[in-house]
């Protein structure tokens, strides 16, 4: 079973604050993703990457930056957090060549007050 680890698991920050969510996968997967989950919307894709140094824009990228520093590590950055970014964030990974199973981390709950 693929291992995807997120940190922190819970975070509270103030409006305008700076937050970094971290994700590490140890299965040499090419693709890594950041999703946010909100009631009524399911999971929406923020950013994704197909390898170190690569970044692709998802469906809801505004207010978020991301960086893939290594094959294993993918970071989501909120430089000026807003209350609308209060959400449950999931990192996921899968091997390339479309059609492989997507594996999720345990989620990071962010509250912006």
């Amino acid at each position: 079973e693929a291992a995807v680890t997120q940190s922190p698991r819970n975070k509270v920050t103030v409006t305008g604050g700076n937050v970094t969510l971290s994700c590490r996968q140890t299965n040499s997967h090419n693709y890594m993703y950041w999703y946010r989950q909100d009631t009524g919307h399911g999971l929406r894709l923020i950013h994704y990457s197909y390898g170190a140094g690569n970044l692709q824009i998802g469906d809801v990228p505004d207010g978020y930056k991301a960086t893939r520093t290594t094959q294993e590590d993918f970071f989501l950055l909120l430089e000026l957090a807003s209350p609308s970014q209060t959400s449950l964030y999931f990192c996921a990974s899968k091997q390339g060549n479309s059609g492989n199973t997507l594996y999720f981390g345990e989620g990071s709950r962010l509250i912006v007050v």
Partner: protein
Amino acid sequence: GDKVKQSPSALSLQEGTNSALRCNFSIAATTVQWFLQNPRGSLMNLFYLVPGTKENGRLKSAFDSKESYSTLHIRDAQLEDSGTYFCAAEAGGYNVLYFGSGTKLTVEP
């Protein structure tokens, strides 16, 4: 508009009964995955499908790419089946999965 429409949004079942969840796609889906999110929030993969059907215990899933839909059938529902079920579709070669908004299933004794 929504690329993946999932129905129903919520469902309550008596233990031992059967039901079906459905996803309709407005993208040219080539593969579909179904996930269960447990009450703690963890997401677990249930099925990965190319067009066709798969079965695992009391769960059976089908994906029809021509008619652009997928179904998840739950037979003999148990309390531990409670949670939120998500479908996700991938359109050929792009390695991006689009999710439905989920079906919250409650199984009652």
